Protein backbone atom coordinates (compact mmCIF):
# COMPACT_ATOMS: atom_id res chain seq x y z
CA UNK A 1 0.00 0.00 0.00
CA UNK A 2 2.56 2.57 1.09
CA UNK A 3 4.85 1.20 -1.51
CA UNK A 4 2.27 1.88 -4.20
CA UNK A 5 1.89 5.41 -2.91
CA UNK A 6 5.66 5.82 -2.95
CA UNK A 7 5.73 4.49 -6.50
CA UNK A 8 2.84 6.66 -7.66
CA UNK A 9 4.36 9.80 -6.16
CA UNK A 10 7.72 8.96 -7.68
CA UNK A 11 6.16 8.39 -11.07
CA UNK A 12 4.29 11.65 -10.76
CA UNK A 13 7.49 13.49 -9.80
CA UNK A 14 9.52 12.17 -12.73
CA UNK A 15 6.75 12.74 -15.25
CA UNK A 16 6.48 16.28 -13.93
CA UNK A 17 10.24 16.62 -14.21
CA UNK A 18 10.18 15.35 -17.78
CA UNK A 19 7.56 17.99 -18.61
CA UNK A 20 9.74 20.70 -17.07
CA UNK A 21 12.78 19.43 -18.97
CA UNK A 22 10.64 19.89 -22.08
CA UNK A 23 10.46 23.57 -21.25
CA UNK A 24 14.10 23.72 -22.34
CA UNK A 25 12.87 23.01 -25.84
CA UNK A 26 10.23 25.70 -25.35
CA UNK A 27 12.77 28.36 -24.44
CA UNK A 28 15.03 27.27 -27.28
CA UNK A 29 12.30 27.53 -29.89
CA UNK A 30 10.87 30.73 -28.46
CA UNK A 31 14.24 32.43 -28.49
CA UNK A 32 15.29 30.98 -31.86
CA UNK A 33 12.07 32.35 -33.32
CA UNK A 34 12.35 35.81 -31.82
CA UNK A 35 15.97 36.64 -32.62
CA UNK A 36 17.30 37.62 -36.00
CA UNK A 37 18.35 34.98 -38.46
CA UNK A 38 22.03 35.68 -38.03
CA UNK A 39 21.93 34.91 -34.30
CA UNK A 40 19.80 31.76 -34.33
CA UNK A 41 22.48 29.07 -34.19
CA UNK A 42 24.08 30.91 -31.33
CA UNK A 43 20.93 31.11 -29.23
CA UNK A 44 20.33 27.43 -29.88
CA UNK A 45 23.85 26.60 -28.70
CA UNK A 46 23.44 28.78 -25.66
CA UNK A 47 20.25 26.98 -24.72
CA UNK A 48 21.69 23.50 -25.16
CA UNK A 49 24.79 24.53 -23.25
CA UNK A 50 23.09 26.33 -20.40
CA UNK A 51 20.73 23.45 -19.76
CA UNK A 52 23.66 21.06 -19.61
CA UNK A 53 25.68 23.36 -17.38
CA UNK A 54 22.72 23.83 -15.08
CA UNK A 55 22.27 20.07 -14.71
CA UNK A 56 25.94 19.47 -13.97
CA UNK A 57 26.47 22.41 -11.61
CA UNK A 58 23.34 21.63 -9.65
CA UNK A 59 24.61 18.10 -9.24
CA UNK A 60 28.04 19.34 -8.26
CA UNK A 61 26.88 21.68 -5.53
CA UNK A 62 23.68 23.60 -6.29
CA UNK A 63 21.37 20.96 -4.87
CA UNK A 64 23.15 20.62 -1.54
CA UNK A 65 23.47 24.37 -1.13
CA UNK A 66 19.76 24.83 -1.75
CA UNK A 67 18.71 21.97 0.50
CA UNK A 68 21.50 21.81 3.09
CA UNK A 69 21.55 18.75 5.29
CA UNK A 70 20.71 18.73 8.95
CA UNK A 71 24.39 18.08 9.49
CA UNK A 72 25.12 21.63 8.52
CA UNK A 73 22.82 22.92 11.18
CA UNK A 74 23.75 20.36 13.73
CA UNK A 75 27.39 21.31 13.50
CA UNK A 76 27.11 24.98 13.18
CA UNK A 77 24.03 25.78 15.16
CA UNK A 78 22.52 27.56 12.23
CA UNK A 79 25.46 28.67 10.15
CA UNK A 80 27.15 30.41 13.08
CA UNK A 81 30.29 28.69 12.21
CA UNK A 82 30.38 28.71 8.47
CA UNK A 83 33.80 27.15 8.11
CA UNK A 84 32.92 24.08 10.10
CA UNK A 85 29.59 23.80 8.37
CA UNK A 86 31.28 23.79 5.01
CA UNK A 87 33.87 21.21 5.93
CA UNK A 88 31.58 18.81 7.77
CA UNK A 89 28.25 19.62 6.21
CA UNK A 90 28.44 20.94 2.69
CA UNK A 91 31.53 19.19 1.34
CA UNK A 92 30.42 15.64 2.19
CA UNK A 93 26.98 16.51 0.92
CA UNK A 94 28.50 17.49 -2.40
CA UNK A 95 29.90 14.01 -2.59
CA UNK A 96 26.59 12.39 -1.86
CA UNK A 97 24.80 14.51 -4.42
CA UNK A 98 27.33 13.68 -7.15
CA UNK A 99 27.24 10.04 -6.05
CA UNK A 100 23.46 9.72 -5.85
CA UNK A 101 22.72 6.12 -6.83
CA UNK A 102 20.31 3.29 -6.22
CA UNK A 103 22.90 1.65 -3.94
CA UNK A 104 22.87 4.47 -1.49
CA UNK A 105 20.76 4.07 1.66
CA UNK A 106 18.19 6.79 1.57
CA UNK A 107 19.18 8.32 4.91
CA UNK A 108 22.74 8.95 3.77
CA UNK A 109 21.94 11.37 1.03
CA UNK A 110 22.27 14.18 3.46
CA UNK A 111 19.49 16.54 2.63
CA UNK A 112 17.09 18.13 5.05
CA UNK A 113 14.27 17.42 2.70
CA UNK A 114 12.35 14.42 3.86
CA UNK A 115 9.85 13.04 1.42
CA UNK A 116 7.77 10.11 0.52
CA UNK A 117 9.23 9.49 -2.87
CA UNK A 118 12.61 8.76 -4.32
CA UNK A 119 15.44 11.22 -3.84
CA UNK A 120 16.46 10.76 -7.44
CA UNK A 121 13.02 11.85 -8.54
CA UNK A 122 13.34 14.84 -6.30
CA UNK A 123 16.72 15.77 -7.72
CA UNK A 124 15.46 15.35 -11.24
CA UNK A 125 12.46 17.54 -10.55
CA UNK A 126 14.60 20.20 -8.87
CA UNK A 127 17.34 20.29 -11.47
CA UNK A 128 15.05 21.23 -14.30
CA UNK A 129 13.91 24.26 -12.31
CA UNK A 130 17.36 25.75 -12.13
CA UNK A 131 17.71 25.28 -15.87
CA UNK A 132 14.44 27.16 -16.33
CA UNK A 133 15.74 30.11 -14.36
CA UNK A 134 18.87 30.23 -16.47
CA UNK A 135 16.91 29.93 -19.73
CA UNK A 136 15.24 33.21 -18.93
CA UNK A 137 18.59 34.96 -19.08
CA UNK A 138 19.58 33.61 -22.48
CA UNK A 139 16.67 35.26 -24.22
CA UNK A 140 17.28 38.68 -22.74
CA UNK A 141 20.95 38.79 -23.73
CA UNK A 142 20.45 37.40 -27.25
CA UNK A 143 22.20 38.98 -30.19
CA UNK A 144 25.17 40.53 -28.40
CA UNK A 145 26.43 38.51 -25.42
CA UNK A 146 29.37 36.30 -26.23
CA UNK A 147 29.10 32.59 -25.66
CA UNK A 148 31.93 31.81 -23.26
CA UNK A 149 31.17 34.60 -20.79
CA UNK A 150 27.54 33.55 -20.97
CA UNK A 151 28.48 30.01 -20.01
CA UNK A 152 30.70 31.27 -17.21
CA UNK A 153 27.79 33.25 -15.88
CA UNK A 154 25.57 30.17 -16.22
CA UNK A 155 27.98 28.27 -13.99
CA UNK A 156 27.79 30.91 -11.28
CA UNK A 157 24.04 31.35 -11.46
CA UNK A 158 23.19 27.67 -11.38
CA UNK A 159 25.81 26.68 -8.82
CA UNK A 160 25.44 29.59 -6.42
CA UNK A 161 23.02 32.42 -7.17
CA UNK A 162 19.92 30.33 -7.76
CA UNK A 163 20.57 27.83 -4.95
CA UNK A 164 21.29 30.57 -2.42
CA UNK A 165 17.97 32.28 -2.84
CA UNK A 166 16.20 29.00 -3.55
CA UNK A 167 17.23 27.98 -0.05
CA UNK A 168 15.47 31.04 1.38
CA UNK A 169 12.09 29.85 0.11
CA UNK A 170 12.25 26.10 -0.38
CA UNK A 171 15.29 24.92 1.55
CA UNK A 172 14.19 26.20 4.93
CA UNK A 173 15.66 29.71 4.76
CA UNK A 174 14.28 32.99 6.05
CA UNK A 175 11.53 33.42 3.48
CA UNK A 176 9.96 30.11 4.34
CA UNK A 177 10.20 30.91 8.06
CA UNK A 178 8.67 34.29 7.42
CA UNK A 179 5.64 32.94 5.59
CA UNK A 180 6.46 34.01 2.04
CA UNK A 181 4.16 31.96 -0.19
CA UNK A 182 5.40 30.96 -3.62
CA UNK A 183 4.03 27.60 -4.68
CA UNK A 184 6.09 26.82 -7.79
CA UNK A 185 8.32 29.84 -8.10
CA UNK A 186 6.87 32.99 -9.67
CA UNK A 187 9.48 34.63 -7.50
CA UNK A 188 12.05 31.95 -6.74
CA UNK A 189 12.45 30.84 -10.34
CA UNK A 190 10.96 33.34 -12.76
CA UNK A 191 11.56 36.64 -11.03
CA UNK A 192 15.04 35.45 -10.07
CA UNK A 193 15.79 34.64 -13.69
CA UNK A 194 14.43 37.96 -14.87
CA UNK A 195 16.32 39.92 -12.22
CA UNK A 196 19.50 38.11 -13.20
CA UNK A 197 18.78 38.93 -16.83
CA UNK A 198 18.32 42.58 -15.97
CA UNK A 199 21.61 42.56 -14.10
CA UNK A 200 23.44 41.10 -17.06
CA UNK A 201 21.75 43.42 -19.55
CA UNK A 202 22.74 46.41 -17.43
CA UNK A 203 26.40 45.60 -17.98
CA UNK A 204 25.88 44.38 -21.53
CA UNK A 205 23.85 47.17 -23.13
CA UNK A 206 21.42 46.89 -26.04
CA UNK A 207 22.06 45.33 -29.45
CA UNK A 208 23.67 47.66 -31.93
CA UNK A 209 21.02 49.45 -33.88
CA UNK A 210 18.20 48.78 -31.46
CA UNK A 211 17.93 52.35 -30.22
CA UNK A 212 18.53 55.29 -32.56
CA UNK A 213 20.50 58.37 -31.46
CA UNK A 214 17.28 60.31 -31.60
CA UNK A 215 15.62 58.00 -29.11
CA UNK A 216 13.75 55.95 -31.70
CA UNK A 217 13.17 52.28 -30.98
CA UNK A 218 14.01 50.15 -34.01
CA UNK A 219 12.07 46.94 -34.05
CA UNK A 220 14.29 44.00 -34.91
CA UNK A 221 11.64 41.47 -35.89
CA UNK A 222 12.08 37.88 -34.95
CA UNK A 223 13.00 35.53 -37.75
CA UNK A 224 10.50 32.75 -37.30
CA UNK A 225 7.12 33.39 -35.70
CA UNK A 226 5.68 29.85 -35.85
CA UNK A 227 8.79 28.59 -34.09
CA UNK A 228 8.30 31.19 -31.37
CA UNK A 229 4.66 30.12 -31.04
CA UNK A 230 5.75 26.51 -30.81
CA UNK A 231 8.09 27.55 -28.03
CA UNK A 232 5.25 29.18 -26.14
CA UNK A 233 3.03 26.13 -26.57
CA UNK A 234 5.84 23.86 -25.37
CA UNK A 235 6.20 26.06 -22.30
CA UNK A 236 2.44 25.89 -21.80
CA UNK A 237 2.60 22.09 -21.78
CA UNK A 238 5.75 21.93 -19.69
CA UNK A 239 4.21 24.26 -17.14
CA UNK A 240 1.76 21.53 -16.14
CA UNK A 241 4.81 19.73 -14.79
CA UNK A 242 6.29 22.90 -13.37
CA UNK A 243 3.21 23.87 -11.37
CA UNK A 244 1.48 20.51 -11.16
CA UNK A 245 4.58 18.77 -9.88
CA UNK A 246 5.13 21.37 -7.18
CA UNK A 247 2.36 19.89 -5.06
CA UNK A 248 5.01 17.15 -4.64
CA UNK A 249 2.51 14.46 -3.68
CA UNK A 250 -0.52 13.15 -5.55
CA UNK A 251 -1.29 9.83 -3.89
CA UNK A 252 -4.07 10.90 -1.56
CA UNK A 253 -7.43 12.40 -2.39
CA UNK A 254 -6.73 15.93 -1.24
CA UNK A 255 -3.42 16.09 -3.07
CA UNK A 256 -4.90 14.63 -6.21
CA UNK A 257 -7.62 17.26 -6.19
CA UNK A 258 -5.06 19.97 -5.56
CA UNK A 259 -2.85 18.79 -8.41
CA UNK A 260 -5.75 18.72 -10.83
CA UNK A 261 -6.86 22.16 -9.70
CA UNK A 262 -3.30 23.30 -10.46
CA UNK A 263 -3.43 21.78 -13.95
CA UNK A 264 -6.76 23.43 -14.60
CA UNK A 265 -5.72 26.81 -13.26
CA UNK A 266 -2.39 26.77 -15.07
CA UNK A 267 -4.24 26.23 -18.30
CA UNK A 268 -6.80 28.90 -17.49
CA UNK A 269 -4.19 31.49 -16.61
CA UNK A 270 -2.32 30.90 -19.86
CA UNK A 271 -5.57 31.31 -21.77
CA UNK A 272 -6.30 34.48 -19.83
CA UNK A 273 -2.83 35.80 -20.61
CA UNK A 274 -3.27 35.32 -24.34
CA UNK A 275 -6.61 37.11 -24.25
CA UNK A 276 -5.31 39.95 -22.10
CA UNK A 277 -2.42 40.65 -24.44
CA UNK A 278 -4.56 40.32 -27.58
CA UNK A 279 -7.30 42.59 -26.30
CA UNK A 280 -4.79 45.25 -25.30
CA UNK A 281 -2.98 44.95 -28.61
CA UNK A 282 -6.21 45.39 -30.54
CA UNK A 283 -7.13 48.34 -28.37
CA UNK A 284 -3.74 50.02 -28.74
CA UNK A 285 -2.90 49.34 -32.38
CA UNK A 286 -5.98 47.87 -34.05
CA UNK A 287 -4.00 44.77 -34.83
CA UNK A 288 -3.45 41.52 -32.97
CA UNK A 289 0.27 41.40 -32.41
CA UNK A 290 1.13 37.72 -32.30
CA UNK A 291 4.35 38.30 -30.39
CA UNK A 292 2.28 39.89 -27.65
CA UNK A 293 -0.09 36.92 -27.61
CA UNK A 294 2.93 34.68 -27.15
CA UNK A 295 4.31 36.79 -24.35
CA UNK A 296 0.83 37.01 -22.87
CA UNK A 297 0.60 33.24 -22.57
CA UNK A 298 3.92 33.12 -20.77
CA UNK A 299 3.03 36.03 -18.52
CA UNK A 300 -0.26 34.37 -17.60
CA UNK A 301 1.62 31.20 -16.70
CA UNK A 302 4.20 33.09 -14.64
CA UNK A 303 1.47 35.03 -12.86
CA UNK A 304 -0.37 31.93 -11.65
CA UNK A 305 2.79 30.10 -10.61
CA UNK A 306 3.08 31.61 -7.15
CA UNK A 307 -0.32 30.24 -6.15
CA UNK A 308 -1.95 27.94 -8.68
CA UNK A 309 -3.96 25.78 -6.29
CA UNK A 310 -5.89 28.36 -4.29
CA UNK A 311 -7.77 30.38 -6.94
CA UNK A 312 -10.96 29.17 -8.54
CA UNK A 313 -10.85 28.46 -12.25
CA UNK A 314 -12.43 31.84 -12.92
CA UNK A 315 -9.93 33.66 -10.72
CA UNK A 316 -7.14 31.93 -12.60
CA UNK A 317 -8.48 33.37 -15.84
CA UNK A 318 -8.49 36.84 -14.32
CA UNK A 319 -4.97 36.52 -12.88
CA UNK A 320 -3.71 35.37 -16.26
CA UNK A 321 -5.57 38.11 -18.07
CA UNK A 322 -4.00 40.79 -15.89
CA UNK A 323 -0.63 39.12 -16.47
CA UNK A 324 -1.24 39.51 -20.19
CA UNK A 325 -2.01 43.21 -19.78
CA UNK A 326 1.03 43.73 -17.59
CA UNK A 327 3.49 42.09 -19.96
CA UNK A 328 2.31 44.32 -22.78
CA UNK A 329 2.87 47.45 -20.79
CA UNK A 330 6.12 46.19 -19.36
CA UNK A 331 7.62 45.47 -22.78
CA UNK A 332 6.81 48.99 -23.91
CA UNK A 333 8.22 50.36 -20.68
CA UNK A 334 11.55 48.54 -20.92
CA UNK A 335 11.89 49.61 -24.54
CA UNK A 336 11.23 53.18 -23.52
CA UNK A 337 14.06 53.08 -20.96
CA UNK A 338 16.30 51.43 -23.55
CA UNK A 339 16.62 48.06 -21.85
CA UNK A 340 16.90 45.75 -24.85
CA UNK A 341 15.26 42.39 -24.23
CA UNK A 342 14.83 40.63 -27.61
CA UNK A 343 12.34 38.06 -26.39
CA UNK A 344 10.58 40.01 -23.65
CA UNK A 345 11.91 37.71 -20.94
CA UNK A 346 12.35 40.38 -18.29
CA UNK A 347 8.75 41.47 -18.70
CA UNK A 348 7.15 38.05 -19.01
CA UNK A 349 9.07 36.46 -16.15
CA UNK A 350 9.99 39.51 -14.06
CA UNK A 351 7.13 41.97 -14.11
CA UNK A 352 4.55 39.22 -14.35
CA UNK A 353 6.46 37.32 -11.67
CA UNK A 354 6.18 40.23 -9.25
CA UNK A 355 2.48 40.45 -10.01
CA UNK A 356 2.15 36.71 -9.46
CA UNK A 357 3.76 36.93 -6.02
CA UNK A 358 1.75 39.95 -4.95
CA UNK A 359 -1.61 38.56 -6.06
CA UNK A 360 -1.32 35.44 -3.89
CA UNK A 361 -2.91 36.95 -0.77
CA UNK A 362 -6.10 37.72 -2.70
CA UNK A 363 -6.88 34.02 -3.06
CA UNK A 364 -4.79 32.44 -0.32
CA UNK A 365 -5.64 33.51 3.20
CA UNK A 366 -2.34 32.24 4.57
CA UNK A 367 -0.27 34.70 2.58
CA UNK A 368 0.32 38.34 3.42
CA UNK A 369 1.16 41.27 1.18
CA UNK A 370 4.03 42.31 3.41
CA UNK A 371 5.79 38.97 3.31
CA UNK A 372 5.17 38.65 -0.39
CA UNK A 373 6.68 42.07 -0.83
CA UNK A 374 9.72 41.15 1.25
CA UNK A 375 10.12 38.04 -0.86
CA UNK A 376 9.91 39.95 -4.12
CA UNK A 377 12.37 42.60 -3.00
CA UNK A 378 14.90 40.19 -1.59
CA UNK A 379 14.79 37.78 -4.54
CA UNK A 380 14.85 40.48 -7.19
CA UNK A 381 17.43 42.56 -5.36
CA UNK A 382 19.76 39.67 -4.73
CA UNK A 383 19.32 38.24 -8.22
CA UNK A 384 19.99 41.58 -9.84
CA UNK A 385 23.00 42.56 -7.75
CA UNK A 386 24.66 39.15 -7.68
CA UNK A 387 24.31 38.82 -11.44
CA UNK A 388 25.42 42.32 -12.17
CA UNK A 389 28.46 41.79 -9.97
CA UNK A 390 29.28 38.46 -11.54
CA UNK A 391 29.18 39.66 -15.13
CA UNK A 392 31.00 42.81 -14.14
CA UNK A 393 33.87 40.68 -12.92
CA UNK A 394 33.71 38.34 -15.93
CA UNK A 395 33.76 41.38 -18.18
CA UNK A 396 37.02 42.54 -16.62
CA UNK A 397 38.78 39.41 -17.84
CA UNK A 398 36.90 38.65 -21.00
CA UNK A 399 34.64 41.10 -22.83
CA UNK A 400 31.08 39.88 -22.63
CA UNK A 401 29.83 42.02 -25.50
CA UNK A 402 30.28 41.01 -29.14
CA UNK A 403 32.10 43.69 -31.12
CA UNK A 404 30.33 45.80 -33.69
CA UNK A 405 31.58 43.74 -36.59
CA UNK A 406 30.68 40.50 -34.84
CA UNK A 407 27.16 41.75 -34.23
CA UNK A 408 26.92 42.98 -37.80
CA UNK A 409 27.91 39.60 -39.25
CA UNK A 410 25.85 37.82 -36.61
CA UNK A 411 27.01 35.74 -33.69
CA UNK A 412 26.42 32.59 -35.72
CA UNK A 413 29.32 33.54 -37.93
CA UNK A 414 31.69 34.69 -35.22
CA UNK A 415 31.05 32.13 -32.52
CA UNK A 416 29.33 29.08 -33.93
CA UNK A 417 30.49 28.93 -37.52
CA UNK A 418 27.19 27.42 -38.60
CA UNK A 419 24.44 29.44 -40.23
CA UNK A 420 20.99 28.56 -39.00
CA UNK A 421 19.34 28.69 -42.41
CA UNK A 422 22.18 28.69 -44.94
CA UNK A 423 19.93 28.09 -47.91
CA UNK A 424 17.32 30.73 -47.16
CA UNK A 425 18.52 34.03 -48.41
Amino acid at each position, binding site marked *: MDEVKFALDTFYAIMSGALVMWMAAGFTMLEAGLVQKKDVSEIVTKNLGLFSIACVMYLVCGFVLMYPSDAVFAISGGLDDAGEAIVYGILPAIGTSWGLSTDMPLDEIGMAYGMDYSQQADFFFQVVFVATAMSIVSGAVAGRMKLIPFFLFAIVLTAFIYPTQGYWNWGGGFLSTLGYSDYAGSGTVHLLGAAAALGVVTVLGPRNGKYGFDGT*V*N*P*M*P*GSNIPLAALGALILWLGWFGFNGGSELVISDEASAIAVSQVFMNTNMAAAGGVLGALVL*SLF*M*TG*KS*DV*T*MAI*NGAIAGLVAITAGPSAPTGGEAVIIGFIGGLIV*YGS*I*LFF*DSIKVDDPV*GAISAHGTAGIFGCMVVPFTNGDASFLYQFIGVVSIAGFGFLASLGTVYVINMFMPIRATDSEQEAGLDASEIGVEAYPEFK
Partner: protein
Amino acid sequence: MKLVVAIIKPFKLQEVREALVDAGIEGLTLSEVKGYGRQKGHTELYRGAEYTVDTLPKIKLEILVEDENLSTVTDTITSTAGTGKIGDGKIFVTTVDDVIRIRTGETGNEAI
Protein backbone atom coordinates in the same frame (compact mmCIF):
# COMPACT_ATOMS: atom_id res chain seq x y z
CA MET B 1 18.97 43.54 -79.70
CA LYS B 2 17.27 45.14 -76.75
CA LEU B 3 17.03 44.12 -73.15
CA VAL B 4 13.63 44.90 -71.68
CA VAL B 5 13.60 45.12 -67.91
CA ALA B 6 10.15 45.31 -66.36
CA ILE B 7 9.32 45.82 -62.70
CA ILE B 8 5.80 44.56 -62.07
CA LYS B 9 3.47 43.63 -59.23
CA PRO B 10 4.01 40.02 -58.14
CA PHE B 11 0.43 38.89 -58.52
CA LYS B 12 0.47 39.99 -62.18
CA LEU B 13 3.36 37.71 -63.04
CA GLN B 14 1.42 34.76 -64.35
CA GLU B 15 -0.80 36.87 -66.55
CA VAL B 16 2.14 38.79 -68.00
CA ARG B 17 4.10 35.66 -68.69
CA GLU B 18 1.23 33.98 -70.44
CA ALA B 19 0.64 37.05 -72.59
CA LEU B 20 4.32 37.18 -73.52
CA VAL B 21 4.34 33.53 -74.49
CA ASP B 22 1.25 34.10 -76.59
CA ALA B 23 3.08 36.98 -78.23
CA GLY B 24 5.85 34.60 -79.22
CA ILE B 25 8.44 35.33 -76.55
CA GLU B 26 10.22 32.13 -75.68
CA GLY B 27 12.59 33.11 -72.96
CA LEU B 28 12.84 35.37 -69.97
CA THR B 29 14.53 35.59 -66.62
CA LEU B 30 12.82 36.79 -63.49
CA SER B 31 13.84 37.70 -59.99
CA GLU B 32 12.28 38.95 -56.81
CA VAL B 33 13.14 42.51 -55.94
CA LYS B 34 11.87 45.22 -53.63
CA GLY B 35 10.62 48.47 -54.99
CA TYR B 36 10.52 51.95 -53.59
CA GLY B 37 8.47 54.55 -55.38
CA ARG B 38 5.37 56.66 -55.24
CA GLN B 39 3.41 53.72 -53.87
CA LYS B 40 4.14 53.85 -50.18
CA GLY B 41 5.00 50.85 -48.05
CA HIS B 42 2.94 49.77 -45.11
CA THR B 43 3.07 49.81 -41.36
CA GLU B 44 4.12 46.75 -39.43
CA LEU B 45 4.08 46.04 -35.77
CA TYR B 46 6.54 44.28 -33.55
CA ARG B 47 6.13 43.84 -29.88
CA GLY B 48 3.96 46.90 -29.59
CA ALA B 49 6.18 49.18 -31.67
CA GLU B 50 4.95 50.33 -35.06
CA TYR B 51 7.36 50.80 -37.91
CA THR B 52 7.20 51.41 -41.62
CA VAL B 53 8.37 48.97 -44.23
CA ASP B 54 9.28 51.31 -47.07
CA THR B 55 9.65 48.84 -49.86
CA LEU B 56 7.20 46.57 -51.55
CA PRO B 57 7.83 43.21 -53.17
CA LYS B 58 8.02 43.40 -56.96
CA ILE B 59 9.03 41.03 -59.72
CA LYS B 60 11.72 41.99 -62.18
CA LEU B 61 11.51 40.50 -65.65
CA GLU B 62 14.47 40.57 -68.01
CA ILE B 63 13.66 39.81 -71.60
CA LEU B 64 16.08 39.96 -74.47
CA VAL B 65 14.35 40.68 -77.75
CA GLU B 66 15.21 41.36 -81.35
CA ASP B 67 14.77 45.01 -82.19
CA GLU B 68 11.68 44.39 -84.25
CA ASN B 69 9.90 42.67 -81.37
CA LEU B 70 10.57 45.43 -78.91
CA SER B 71 7.26 47.19 -79.17
CA THR B 72 5.33 43.92 -79.07
CA VAL B 73 6.94 43.11 -75.77
CA THR B 74 6.58 46.49 -74.16
CA ASP B 75 2.99 46.77 -75.32
CA THR B 76 2.14 43.34 -74.04
CA ILE B 77 3.61 44.11 -70.65
CA THR B 78 2.02 47.52 -70.42
CA SER B 79 -1.39 46.16 -71.21
CA THR B 80 -1.31 43.11 -68.96
CA ALA B 81 0.67 44.37 -65.96
CA GLY B 82 -1.30 47.55 -65.53
CA THR B 83 -3.97 47.84 -62.86
CA GLY B 84 -4.23 51.58 -63.16
CA LYS B 85 -3.28 51.87 -59.51
CA ILE B 86 -0.09 53.39 -58.27
CA GLY B 87 2.87 51.01 -58.10
CA ASP B 88 2.26 49.21 -61.37
CA GLY B 89 5.93 49.53 -62.17
CA LYS B 90 8.32 50.52 -64.92
CA ILE B 91 9.79 49.16 -68.09
CA PHE B 92 13.40 50.05 -69.02
CA VAL B 93 14.84 49.38 -72.43
CA THR B 94 18.58 49.18 -73.01
CA THR B 95 20.68 48.21 -75.97
CA VAL B 96 22.61 44.98 -75.79
CA ASP B 97 25.84 44.61 -77.73
CA ASP B 98 25.73 40.90 -78.07
CA VAL B 99 24.24 37.73 -76.76
CA ILE B 100 25.66 34.21 -76.66
CA ARG B 101 23.77 30.97 -76.18
CA ILE B 102 26.06 28.97 -73.93
CA ARG B 103 24.90 25.57 -75.12
CA THR B 104 25.70 26.16 -78.79
CA GLY B 105 27.94 29.17 -78.80
CA GLU B 106 25.56 30.90 -81.22
CA THR B 107 25.57 34.67 -81.03
CA GLY B 108 23.35 37.53 -82.12
CA ASN B 109 19.66 37.13 -82.96
CA GLU B 110 20.17 33.40 -83.34
CA ALA B 111 20.92 33.16 -79.66
CA ILE B 112 17.92 34.97 -78.26
